[in-house]
């Protein structure tokens, strides 16, 4: 079957099997390998992308379900060589070690800033909203610090 996706602003028409997962279209067909697969069982959040601005786990969604929608991946976040303020905050605050979880962390962070627009992001909110993202290196503390700083820089 054919689907159309707008990925990071570019329209694509893609031939897929109905069973194809969104994450596989992004990684294998569009070669956008910044979206990672950590667990493949809906647990770790490293495959997080945005569909119409909302965070989803791309390993738990059929590509067919996204037909006609706008998808944003980590590759769509920076402006050329200029990091997005959230990415810059992660670098500044040492919010990554191996970096495997980072694309998912950033996508979740951006969605949480968006969904809490108009109210200050607190540490409690950040920790709750990170429940779907695992990091096996940092112990989360620098990630929480970076998200709070990134949110401030974006305001």
């Amino acid at each position, binding site marked *: *079957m054919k689907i159309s996706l707008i990925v990071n602003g570019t329209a694509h028409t893609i031939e897929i*099997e*109905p*069973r194809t*997962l969104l994450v596989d279209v992004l990684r294998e067909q569009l070669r956008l390998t910044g979206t990672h697969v950590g667990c*493949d*069982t*809906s*647990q770790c*959040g490293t495959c*997080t992308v945005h*569909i119409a601005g*909302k*965070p*989803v*786990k791309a390993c*738990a*969604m*059929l590509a*067919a*379900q996204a*037909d006609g929608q706008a998808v944003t991946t980590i590759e769509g976040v920076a402006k050329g060589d200029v990091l997005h303020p959230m990415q810059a905050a992660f670098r500044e605050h040492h919010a990554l070690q191996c970096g495997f979880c980072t694309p998912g962390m950033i996508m*979740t962070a951006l*969605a*949480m800033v968006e*969904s809490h627009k108009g109210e200050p992001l607190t540490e409690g909110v950040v920790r709750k*909203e990170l*429940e*779907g*993202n695992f990091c096996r290196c940092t112990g989360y503390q620098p990630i929480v610090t970076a998200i709070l700083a990134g949110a401030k820089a974006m305001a």
Partner: protein
Amino acid sequence: MHNFNYHRPKTLSEARAIFSGAEDAVYLAGGQTLIPTLKQRLRQPSDVIDLSQLAELRGIAVEKDAVVIGAMTRHADVAASTDVRRLIPALAHLAGEVGDPQVRSLGTLGGSVANSDPAADYPAAVLALGAAIHTPERIIAADDFFTGLFETALEPGEMIVKISFPVPKRAAYMKFRNPASRYAVAGVCVADTAKGIRVAVTGAGPNAFRQTEMETALSKSFTPEALAGVIVSSEDLNTDLHATAAYRAHLVAVMARRAVEALI
């Protein structure tokens, strides 16, 4: 995952016709339960019918004494709805405690209720609030809906279109979350409704059920102390790697007490 035919019908009758015509069809809502099930090959349907384009399954409406929520409404949209927050804050709170933000972006009310997972949150509110489950064919009372482990009163191919939640005088939902999955190890919804006090338990048994001893005790005196005399039996409760039946019985009592405390 085995391959299947994928459909995205635009009308209820089209969806129903595809279901009847297929060898072994399954409806797809948010996919947060179904897709992992397909990936593990626990189900191998011939046809997957995506309900996302059915207008009848969408939206939140306030009717006379009820909030009516379309089956395809995502958990995040129930949690954020100003109408649900104003009229049934316990339901908005419950929706905001399901899983994580990514699961709440896609997971739906209809999918959760149709699935009748023993650890799912929504069934507790559906039962305690005395909701009505609407399908194209009939209206099913919450008391008749949850029939067993992953089993409901739905006939094969019967679809949840919307669920009508009567607005309670007050209600609260408290759950003891599994810290890894966030599913309910035990969850209790206490509601003071036009039809009296209703207490529903999820997470503890094979499916959500009403705790009638607590209802009787709270009808006499709506206080945490009134619950002290109720012994929650562990008979028929679940034992698994997360908790024993006895521990779940204890948690049911604690969650019920917290719910009542939150309401007085």
